[in-house]
């Protein structure tokens, strides 16, 4: 296992950029299909976010893990094109970036295993920092935000070139990927967004950011000091805590403890993720791609329902009935699906 600062920065920034691409894809799919013209072929690009299926080909035929530096350079140019483009091209580039970032994420996960959570904490911290620097608007909003994004891409590529990830050894089994991507889905939609956390129930923006940071720092402290190893025997309690805190966070605005719940939800989510990354959770490396594709299909359904919920009057009958006034339930399910993806890891710890 390779573990050095540069690798964690590179893999952390990869996650950060993946989350930003995810936001761009969903926004542009919405605008291109619901903003004016109606449903059209661009919606197919949404299906291409099942990058796990592409990964099978990338690893098998292109041997992408031996060419990760080249992959990163290509991805960098994709980012640049994305910045300068028309929405349809922007959307296509964002999807392509997600496809190219997937092998990097998987590679780092295989190398770092459970320590990958450190990369994820870095990635989320960077994402939140970038969002606050841009003052909670999209990268396309202004010249300044595009510049910020450009700088992050340069920093990312620099770390990738200076601290390339070690080559992978052939193994019989690999760490599981399900919890990681469901966690990324949860973070992108809710937990790592200062905007969403501040307005889900209208809360003080500064305190929200403060408590998001506290949650991440606590999680980092617990994992970095290896205190997490002592908590593993309490895994079912961590699961229950996350279910409870996420429920409270999404359904209620409890006046005095609302901000503490933000921290506790984030903390529990990260600790659960640690447990959810099972060392030998996946068989062959192709199976990682297959599983990932399946998970991403669930994320697509979840994303669609969450996007549709405030526009239920414009949805076809069955969808309308499903999403009508169910914003909270749909958001809660994002968290709970992630939590239940960690159950296998919890069972292994308890055995």
């Amino acid at each position, binding site marked *: 296992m390779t573990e050095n600062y540069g690798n964690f920065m590179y893999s952390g920034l990869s996650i950060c950029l993946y989350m930003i691409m995810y936001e761009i894809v969903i926004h542009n799919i919405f605008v291109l299909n619901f903003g004016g013209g109606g449903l059209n072929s661009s919606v197919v690009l949404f299906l291409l976010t099942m990058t796990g299926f592409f990964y099978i080909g990338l690893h098998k035929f292109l041997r992408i893990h031996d060419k990760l530096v080249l992959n990163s350079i290509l991805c960098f140019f994709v980012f640049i094109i994305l910045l300068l483009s028309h929405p349809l091209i922007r959307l296509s580039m964002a999807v392509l970036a997600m496809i190219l970032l997937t092998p990097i994420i998987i590679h780092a996960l295989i190398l770092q295993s459970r320590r990958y959570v450190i990369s994820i904490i870095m990635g989320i911290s960077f994402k939140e920092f970038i969002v606050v620097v841009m*003052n909670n608007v999209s990268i*396309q909003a202004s010249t300044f935000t595009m510049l910020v994004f450009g700088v992050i891409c340069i920093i990312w590529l620099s770390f990738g070139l200076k601290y390339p990830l070690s080559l992978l050894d052939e193994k019989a089994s690999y760490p599981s990927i399900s919890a990681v991507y469901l966690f990324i889905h949860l973070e992108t939609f809710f937990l790592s967004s200062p905007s969403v956390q501040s307005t889900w129930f209208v809360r003080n923006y500064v305190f929200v950011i403060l408590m998001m940071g506290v949650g991440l720092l606590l999680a980092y402290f617990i994992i970095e000091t290896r205190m997490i190893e002592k908590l593993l025997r309490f895994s079912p309690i961590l699961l229950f805590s996350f279910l409870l805190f996420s429920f409270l966070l999404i359904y209620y605005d409890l006046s005095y403890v609302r901000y503490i719940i933000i921290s506790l939800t984030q903390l529990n989510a990260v600790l659960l993720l640690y447990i959810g990354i099972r060392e030998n959770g996946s068989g062959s490396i192709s199976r990682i791609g297959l599983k990932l594709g399946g998970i991403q299909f669930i994320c697509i359904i979840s994303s669609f329902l969450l996007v549709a919920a405030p526009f239920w009057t414009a949805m076809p009958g069955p969808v309308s009935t499903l999403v009508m006034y169910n914003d909270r339930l749909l958001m809660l399910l994002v968290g709970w699906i992630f939590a239940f993806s960690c159950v296998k890891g919890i069972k292994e710890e308890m055995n």
Partner: protein
Amino acid sequence: MKILNKQQSTILLIIILTIGLAFYQSYRPSHTESVDTIKVMTYNVHLFTDMGSSGQNNLVEIAQLIKDAGADIIGLQESEGSRMASSNQYGVKWLADELNMYYYFGPSTHLGVWGVSLLSRWEILNPRVELLPSEGTLQRVAIVAEIDIPSPFGKISVIVTHLSFDLQEVQLAQAEKIVELAKNNDKTIAMGDFNTVIAQLDGKSINDDPTFVLLNNSLVDSWVESGGAADENTSFHFSEAEPDINNTRIDYIWYLGDFTVIIGNHQVLGDESVSDHRAILVEFTA
């Protein structure tokens, strides 16, 4: 002696910088100098995306429009940006920071509404969200707040809303609620996207629209008071699919109480490169 390694330092630094920056962005200077007139604007900002499927973010254009107009109080509709469909943007806060104004975000995101917000040069007091009757359709809301404007204006009540566009009886019930809220105070400005278009889709004129009639009989139309025509085409750009209803007037600034509208200072601002609505602006003296 190293207390923290590079990785620990990085995470700590990034999180501290994030929190520090958030604090810095929250600073607002107060404006206590007296004012002779106030400019009030209502603007439907289309979830911070320009009209149609080009998908360009319109925040910079909106901020520039408001700056150029010199608006003091701005009611926004479709201002909900905290969703992935809108790139998880806190657009209202960004505008407030850009314009150095106070803001009230409005209804919580979990309600699943499209957003109604308020920007003000002066501090916004006692803001609240009122749910409007919305049986069988999207939940609609109004925000009610007070703004303590320096003399000679004093404290005024401001209502911002966005009514339904699909069911006439529901829209009418919502308008009744708006009138009731407006009449609760001595000096009220009630503005927003009132979607007085349902009757017009049936071929009726604005003067036959039940919602418009109710509002017009209960409140004062600042556009008309300023010299505009009641049935003037001002705001909404419909799609080419509905060419008969084009540039209809559905955005209004109503008022009650001791205000005087400055004649001739009503404006329509912006175009479809910014939003599918245009901003409406009127100017008041005390």
